[in-house]
């Protein structure tokens, strides 16, 4: 009985996470059972996007600073992980100028992705610490500057990235369930970070930075921690994505992708995990669906380039006019409170009058 009480108490405070994980898991299961190769592909991308967008939410949603550099860390994670996971033969073929030190390294898939994510986090930590003092427009422009710098380096550092050309020969390790597992882990991580002490301090600094520093919150430090976690998640998503798509160029990590993930986050509402999840699911399906239509029209000789983006951008503008805080406006979905539950709660916390 006590166990049941404890569970219902846990469920009442954590119902959001259950309500988010269960439908996502169902979606993955249904895909596994009924899905064709197209759905399989879309859902795999969806869960990678989920990790990526939740990474963005971890920083942007909690700190209120618009981060344009996020996709750059995804790029770093993708390239860094690939350098460790590719076989020496594949590396010799696609990256002939690679440094000898890296030439013969060959590590398991997940270890490589983890290393890639750590490298992304390290870059974010070094670049980010001085930037965390900036807010508003200055922060937006510097974040944008960081994205441009990362892009320029990726395009020109031929020894490691094959320059502007496509890097190929990556093995496909990211299956549906790998992506689902880490997407769901991302939900849990982002949720509990938001609810943690640091997350709370970060959100306090977002709502009023003077009041927050008055009560002793070191804004630069909490922002920095959030930023590093955010870059780590983006880097991890990048590693997973690289081992799913298997060939890519630096241009996959620039402005149109930045727009796509910003749309995913903003549609649902950047302030909450639920908003990020709903936005990612909705935008990924719309994005991939329209992309398919676009491609099939183009195959038949029609010119329909850019239709997906036009549609997404128009709907995003309309949505921002209608609800500038996103569909959910930063709230979390949670189980509606029932009488019996609040009684359980009273039993546990002693007999207080409500």
């Amino acid at each position: 009985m006590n166990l049941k009480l404890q569970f219902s108490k846990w469920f009442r405070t954590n119902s959001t996470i259950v309500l988010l994980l269960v439908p996502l898991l169902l979606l993955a299961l249904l895909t596994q059972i009924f899905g064709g190769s197209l759905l399989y592909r879309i859902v795999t991308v969806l869960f990678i996007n989920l990790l990526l967008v939740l990474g963005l939410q971890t920083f942007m949603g909690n700190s209120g600073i618009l981060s344009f550099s996020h996709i750059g860390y995804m790029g770093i994670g993708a390239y860094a992980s690939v350098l460790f996971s590719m076989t020496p033969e594949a590396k010799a073929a696609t990256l002939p100028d690679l440094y000898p030190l890296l030439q013969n390294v060959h590590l398991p898939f997940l270890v490589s992705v983890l290393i890639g994510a750590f490298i992304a986090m390290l870059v974010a930590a070094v670049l980010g610490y001085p930037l965390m003092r900036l807010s508003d427009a200055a922060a937006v422009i510097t974040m944008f500057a960081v994205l441009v710098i990362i892009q320029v380096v990726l395009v020109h550092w031929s020894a490691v990235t094959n320059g502007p050309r496509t890097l190929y020969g990556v093995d496909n390790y990211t299956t549906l369930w790998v992506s689902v597992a880490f997407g769901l882990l991302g939900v849990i991580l982002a949720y509990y970070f938001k609810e943690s002490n640091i997350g709370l301090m970060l959100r306090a600094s977002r709502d009023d930075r003077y009041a927050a520093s008055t009560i002793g919150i070191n804004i630069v430090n909490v922002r920095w921690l959030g930023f590093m976690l955010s870059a780590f998640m983006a880097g991890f998503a990048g590693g997973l994505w690289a081992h799913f798509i298997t060939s890519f160029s630096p241009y996959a990590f620039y402005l149109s992708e930045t727009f796509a993930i910003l749309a995913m986050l903003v549609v649902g509402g950047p302030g909450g995990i639920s908003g990020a999840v709903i936005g990612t699911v909705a935008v990924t399906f719309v994005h991939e669906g329209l992309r398919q239509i676009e491609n099939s029209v183009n195959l038949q000789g029609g010119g329909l380039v850019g239709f997906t983006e036009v549609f997404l951008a128009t709907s995003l503008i309309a949505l921002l006019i209608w609800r500038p805080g996103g569909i959910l406006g930063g709230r979390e979905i949670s189980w509606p409170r029932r009488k019996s539950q609040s009684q359980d709660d009273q039993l546990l916390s002693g007999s207080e009058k409500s």
Partner: protein
Amino acid sequence: MLTIDFLINTLSLGSLYAMLALGLVIVYGILKLVNFAYGELLMIAGYTLYILGGLSTTLPWFVIAILAVLVAAAISYLTEMIAFRPVREKSLTAMLITSFAVSTLLQNAALLIISPRARAVPLPDFFSQSVALAGSNIPIRNILSIVTAVVLFGALSLLLKYTVLGIALRAAADDFRMTRLLGVPANLVISTAFIISGFFAGVVAIFWTARTASVTPTIGAAPLLVAFVACVIGGMSNLLGAVVGGYLYGIIYSLLSLWLPQYLLDYREAFMFLIVILILLFRPSGLIRGNASSERVG
């Protein structure tokens, strides 16, 4: 090394950059909006040149050019009215994302409606001619861009100093809320700022497209980045800062091209943005300070 043609070329580059920065800052000063759709205004002016140049061969070039500038100003006004005005009061982040969305929308609309491939823009003959000056050949285009910039800056400062609208614009950049309390209509001021912004984008577009004599859907990205850097160098909060920043950008960029070793030349853009980050860290209000801004903590 510092010959007359290097000097003129640098000055001409600086003039373009200064006009770009000015167009961005005039909106930023009032709305605090970093307008990501600014680069697309150049693209629109470029496509207007292409379309009008293709439609009629009888229209003289300078009429086409003036029409292109006017179209850019009109589109700038339309984006303000349709997209920015409804979100303006709500949140800065919403406005920034809106501007990013407008940029994506315009760029992809060009892809969808016209073509991903480059399109030729009409150029008058004198754009490709040059004159001999102190022993070196100077393209007329470069001299023209310097003259245009000087004339436009003069006209704008007259407008800002001696007309009611100009004074309202300056007051709004100083303290928007107070200006509104004094009875200046907010929509009028903001629309004017957007129109001036589009006007400058259109003027720069004529010179910018002339470099390759063509226009592509992504042509707006590079000038946008230039305008960002120039604004930050000069200071985001006043117009003089933007102009100074634009010229400084031209000078620094030319010098980097001259001094950087070959293998680092590709990273020139990265160096420019590194300068931006350093300036924002150590002198966040730019070289020329306007009003106190509270953009930094710690």
